[in-house]
């Protein structure tokens, strides 16, 4: 038992420990942000030395840490295409590829064309259609070029200039230009109908076109985080203007637009563009894409995608990517069925809806030889972070929340090691909510603060607060004798929340805190989170890597949403400069100020310093309580699927598979494909 | 060919129930003469209907024929013993409805409510004759007319619940006679009907019998009906035959005390002001309980009496 545990975590422990020590000063996101050229060269240097091989799985090609090379750099002159395209009435492949195509390094072997990948619809999130101007390196700290061949952030952090690659085309052959970025930034994000309140990252900004290939984002205040934002979120910042402008009031007169939208069965153009963009409607098959696959058929039950003939990436032998011809995603409504379908080889790639507890079943299915079960590692700091609603209308409750001793009591009441054994087969890590070990702001002590199991201490802390069991039912009441019960509402998505919280409620009841669980769905969670009605909720603590950490989801009241409803009033107060909401206590004001400064500073040292301060505050005060994190994530693939790394990091921060280049995944011979035409 | 179309000998039927074996028929023997009307009389439970059901071989479990034989001598086929027929014997199909047919007590329920009368009458023909549906319906219409139903072309398509009780019984009779059976068994056909209608039905049966010259086995408890209709009378009690004779013999000069009792219990014969006799008051139950074999007398009648009583009769 002990041995196996050790064996499994060697990689992880080594990885993060040495990374913090050895790499922290070397290749960090901040350098990249400050100067793109450094990152491009730096990445290359770094992966060359042996230390890196020890940190990251040996299997990963070092090219995954570097800026992509182009065909001319590697001297590739001959290009070829999938036989599927031979019969099509298309220009030759050389003309479809950009002037200097991007070369992607596969995991190991050069792949072969063909096959249809079957996935669950939600898996499309993780098997991404994510081509943005910038992208993330496999180390989750470095920003790399993608559609843009270079970028430059001005020293004051106010202007980001992007230079696109030459000859990029949408999947319908229409040239891809700066206008496609300007359309999103200026015409959507700064349109009052589309976004009544401009999102934080775009506030006081505009996009300006220099040429078809060059444009820049300019901001009133320093906004260096825009680079990280684009690296992570860039695919949402570019849309085919030539298609969407037909549905935008700036380009079509109102009456025509309204009647057109109404004819299509929509209430407003905003809803149409949103639904189309998020691929929820039949029309989602119409707009062209820059991604590896384009949708050709959309129904509420399934989506069919085929290769984009104008995709801009090739493999080292000059073959146009992707290798796989088509992807079919079906809407599997019953989540319970997905594990069974995965285990019986009915899906070629499946992970998003799988949980750690599913691993034995999947491993059993692996014996049939149809599938392989890879164990990746979730990047979530903890699988369930407990969120106190400090602004709840029940003032009695919030004043209790505000007691640090109360939060500490609740934290040490949790037997995290037992949770780890029961839910994670002992292969997770008991933790608090803090940065991911890969982060430059990670401090190990913050992760272990108040994680030791000490129910006696919890009881005495609660006693100190005057919470006593008056009526003898084993549960504590308020000092004035009123019953104390907390309702925890949560969505059972992604990480194993239901079982974790069931266990948590047992521990808390053991120290006398009455906690009630209620599973809710997205709409209800959102509604109640917005209204600040939830007394307590839980969400997995992602957004903890360097790319994402400055967004300040967990560390300070500057963001609220369905996933974070700890302090809505304080967030509002901060966002509106005190016009609405409530002024937070001084200690919270301080967090907001640090957060603002961290967001705006262009000084990498200062940023790390501020980040650590915020993390320390959380470790000391336990604004949120953590459970178990860095847990194993099953990834089920068809045994015929090649190019998927055996070990990977799983989560939203790195867009799940983005840096492992799904376009280079391929099917071994013998896979039938009837999906293409 | 014998004069009797049916000769029943020593027929015994038992019903096995939770409480033991009930002897429904014990050594029943009598003949049904050809072309005559034989009436079987007796009170409820005397075994009249069981006898009829035995002849049709439609006795339901737990009832069972345990012994005896019923020699059936139809004109159309060779004679055979009905009792000995196997359940799957093809002759059984001809027997039921073709050679022998039956009219039941309850005209209200003897017809299925979900089929038209035409359908149910024609079915009887279709079961036995190799004719087309149209021909069967024509024959059925013909028969319905003969049993006195008006406006047959319309009514043939109606359902039983659209008919009055008497009309329904006419339909049942039509159904029974449509194949021109050699024996017609009427199991209390008029009991459930109004008195006026009773008379009409009886007239109908008698007229048709004379017209078609079938043999009729007429089961009833009504001695008035017997007098009107029958040539020969069989008196039954508790599963036994007590007395057999011509209608004149039995009704005018009953030999068996039970028969006498039966006659005495008929209202109307009793002078005004006198109490109506019960059978038990005429003959003690114990007398009837004692079983004696049927003895054939000189005048051809048969009676089940103690040797003493028989001697007495002889002496007269």
């Amino acid at each position, binding site marked *: *038992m002990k041995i*196996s545990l050790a*064996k499994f975590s060697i990689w992880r422990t080594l990885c993060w420990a040495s990374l913090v020590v050895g790499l922290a000063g070397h290749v960090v996101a901040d350098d990249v942000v400050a100067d793109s050229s450094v990152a491009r060269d730096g990445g290359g240097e770094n992966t060359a030395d042996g230390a890196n091989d020890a940190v990251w799985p040996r299997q990963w090609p070092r090219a995954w840490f570097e800026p992509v090379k182009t065909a001319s750099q590697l001297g590739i002159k001959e290009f070829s295409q999938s036989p599927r395209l031979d019969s099509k009435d298309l220009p030759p492949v050389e003309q479809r590829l950009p002037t200097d195509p991007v070369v992607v390094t596969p995991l190991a072997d050069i792949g072969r064309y063909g096959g249809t990948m079957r996935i669950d619809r939600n898996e499309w999130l993780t098997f991404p259609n994510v081509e943005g101007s910038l992208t993330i390196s496999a180390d989750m700290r470095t920003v790399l070029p993608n559609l843009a061949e270079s970028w430059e952030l001005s020293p004051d952090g106010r202007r980001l200039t992007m230079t696109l690659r030459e000859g990029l085309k949408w999947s319908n052959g229409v040239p891809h230009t700066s206008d496609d970025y300007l359309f999103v930034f200026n015409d959507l994000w700064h349109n009052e109908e589309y976004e009544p309140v401009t999102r934080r990252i775009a506030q006081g900004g505009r996009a300006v076109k220099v040429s078809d290939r060059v444009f820049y984002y300019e901001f009133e205040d320093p906004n260096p985080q825009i680079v990280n934002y684009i690296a992570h979120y860039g695919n949402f910042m570019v849309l085919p203007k030539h298609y969407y402008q037909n549905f935008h009031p700036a380009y079509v007169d109102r009456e025509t637009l309204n009647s057109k939208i109404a004819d299509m069965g929509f209430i407003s153009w905003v809803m149409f563009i949103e639904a189309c963009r998020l691929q929820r409607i039949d029309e989602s098959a119409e707009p062209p894409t820059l991604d590896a696959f384009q949708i050709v058929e959309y129904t509420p039950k399934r989506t069919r995608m085929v290769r984009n003939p104008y995709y801009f990436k090739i493999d080292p032998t000059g073959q146009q990517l992707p290798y796989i011809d088509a992807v079919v995603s079906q809407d599997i409504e019953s989540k*319970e*069925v997905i*594990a*069974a379908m995965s*285990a019986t080889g009915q899906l070629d790639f499946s992970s998003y809806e799988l949980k750690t*507890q*599913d*691993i*034995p*079943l999947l*491993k*059993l299915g692996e014996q049939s030889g149809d599938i392989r079960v890879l164990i990746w590692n979730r990047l979530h700091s903890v699988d369930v972070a407990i969120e106190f609603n400090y602004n709840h209308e029940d003032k009695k409750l919030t004043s209790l929340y505000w007691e640090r001793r109360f939060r500490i009591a609740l934290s040490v009441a949790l037997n995290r090691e*037992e949770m780890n*054994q*029961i839910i994670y*087969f*002992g292969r997770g890590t008991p933790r608090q909510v803090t940065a991911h070990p890969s982060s430059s702001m990670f401090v190990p002590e913050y992760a272990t603060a108040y994680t030791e199991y000490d129910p006696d201490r919890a009881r005495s802390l609660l006693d100190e607060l005057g919470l006593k069991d008056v009526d003898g*039912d084993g549960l504590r009441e308020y000092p004035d004798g009123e019953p104390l*019960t907390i*309702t925890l*509402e949560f969505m059972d998505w992604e990480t194993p929340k239901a*079982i974790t919280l*069931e*266990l948590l*409620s*047992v521990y808390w*009841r053991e120290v006398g805190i009455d906690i*009630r*669980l*209620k*599973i*809710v769905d997205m709409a*209800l969670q959102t509604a*109640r989170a917005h209204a600040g009605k939830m*007394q307590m909720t839980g969400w997995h603590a992602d957004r903890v890597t360097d790319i994402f950490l400055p967004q300040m989801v967990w560390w300070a009241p500057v963001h609220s949403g369905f996933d974070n409803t700890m302090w809505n009033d304080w967030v509002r107060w901060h966002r509106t400069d005190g016009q609405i909401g409530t002024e937070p206590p001084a200690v919270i004001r301080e967090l907001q100020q640090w957060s603002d400064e961290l967001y705006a500073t262009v000084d990498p040292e200062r940023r790390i310093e501020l980040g650590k301060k915020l993390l320390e505050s959380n470790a000391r005060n336990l604004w949120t309580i953590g459970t178990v994190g860095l847990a194993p994530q099953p990834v089920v693939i068809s045994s015929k699927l090649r190019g998927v790394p055996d070990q990977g990091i799983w989560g939203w921060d790195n867009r799940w598979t983005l840096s492992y280049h799904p376009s280079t995944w391929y099917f071994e011979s013998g896979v039938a494909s009837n999906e293409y035409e | 060919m014998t004069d009797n179309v049916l000769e029943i000998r020593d027929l015994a039927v038992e019903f096995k129930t939770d409480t033991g074996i009930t002897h429904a028929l014990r050594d029943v023997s009598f003949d049904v003469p050809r072309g005559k009307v034989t009436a079987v009389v007796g009170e409820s439970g005397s075994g009249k209907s069981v006898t009829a059901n035995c002849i049709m071989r439609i006795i339901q479990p737990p009832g069972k024929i345990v012994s005896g034989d019923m020699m059936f001598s139809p004109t159309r086929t060779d004679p055979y013993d009905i009792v000995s027929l196997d359940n799957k014997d093809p002759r059984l199909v001809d027997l039921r409805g073709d050679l022998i047919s039956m009219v039941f007590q309850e005209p209200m329920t003897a017809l299925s409510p979900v089929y038209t009368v035409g359908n149910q009458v024609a079915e009887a023909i279709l079961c036995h004759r190799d004719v087309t549906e149209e021909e069967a319906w024509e024959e059925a219409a013909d028969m319905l007319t003969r049993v006195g139903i008006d406006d047959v072309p319309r009514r043939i398509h109606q359902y039983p619940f659209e008919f009055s009780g008497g009309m329904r019984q006419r339909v049942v009779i039509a159904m029974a006679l449509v194949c021109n059976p050699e024996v017609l068994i009427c199991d209390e056909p008029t009991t459930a009907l109004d008195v006026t209608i009773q008379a009409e039905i009886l007239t109908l049966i008698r007229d048709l019998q004379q017209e078609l010259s079938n043999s009729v086995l007429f089961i009833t408890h009504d001695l008035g009906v017997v007098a009107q209709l029958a040539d020969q009378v069989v008196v039954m009690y508790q599963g036994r035959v007590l007395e057999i004779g011509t209608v004149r013999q039995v009704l005018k000069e009953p030999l068996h005390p039970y028969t006498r009792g039966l006659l005495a219990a008929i209202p109307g014969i009793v002078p005004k002001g006198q109490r109506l006799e019960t059978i038990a008051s005429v003959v003690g139950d114990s007398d009837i309980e004692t079983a004696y074999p049927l003895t054939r007398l000189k005048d051809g009648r048969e009676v089940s009496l103690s040797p003493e009583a028989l001697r007495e009769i002889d002496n007269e």
Partner: protein
Amino acid sequence: MSELTIDTQIEAISPRQLAWIRFKRHRLAMVSGCFLILIYLVAGLCEFVTPYGTETRNVQAINAPPMSIHFVDNDGSFHLRPFVYGYDMHINDDTWMREYTENPEKRYPIYFLARGESYELWNLIESDLHLFTTRDGYIHLFGTDQLGRDVFSRVFYGARVSLSIGIVGVMLTLFFGVLIGGLAGYLGGLVDRAVQRVIEVLQSMPTLPLWMALSAALPVYWSPIAVYFGITIILSLFGWPALARQVRGRFLALREEDFVVSARLLGAGKMRIIFKHMLPSFTSHVIATATLAVPGMILGETALSFLGIGLRPPVVSWGVLMQQAQNYQVIVMTPWLLIPGLFVVLTVMAFNLLGDGLRDAVDPYSTGGQN
């Protein structure tokens, strides 16, 4: 069932005695009745009957299979006191499965009426006496769930909730059904027509989708006990029409009976006539019908809880237990978590058989009464 006891003092056979005699002939119904009495008894005393509480976890036995009871140990010697062997748990590195092997070293004898975990019976009587338990080690006759909780104990704690929902729900149904059906049948006319229409409408709606919609509308902050009653009320909301229809029919027939007419002529009030004269005359039918309605309630609760919109932890009901067992994994990996389902099946069957028996006993001519 107290209605069915025979008063031997009465010489003439009352209708109830007659019914009891008829009922006794239904052997299956008798067996079912005994089973139900037993399981209600066990559910009522589940703190005593089960060795552990609902939240007691055994971390050494996560998803452990049921233990078998032994009399003969590994050396072949016989012990009068039955015992179980403790488990050795090992997580297989390849399959990630928890593999359990019986360890002959860990022999845990079973003691009856022994001291164990302390509890409060009905939140009143404090005790630690259990029907059976072990002194050292642990005993999981039905195995354990994913948190290492004893399935045996949870099944019977769950029985308390599920079975009481059946009874409480049927009581509510009865109340609504008899009241509404009775009024409609007695008053007739406009009221009757309106009730008829409502019954028709409610009966023509698929119940489960409506239950789903209503359960989803229960406020999240409701306490478990409030949710319990909420669910019960929702379940009975669509149960009463069938009963009301039947009651109405009986009322219509009874209304013309002599004793009712005479009561009316004597000037008795409507309510008095209904409750004093008419209701008692068909109590037994109502009881039989109510018995047949219980399974629907129990199945309804399991279905809603199974869908996650009924009861929820820490309340333990059969439906809540089944919710854990709702996926393919359970059948393949931990089939013993389906044991609560077995109890649902047995109980529902028992109620059906008992109801049939009762109905035959009180009304031998009704359809379906041939068993």
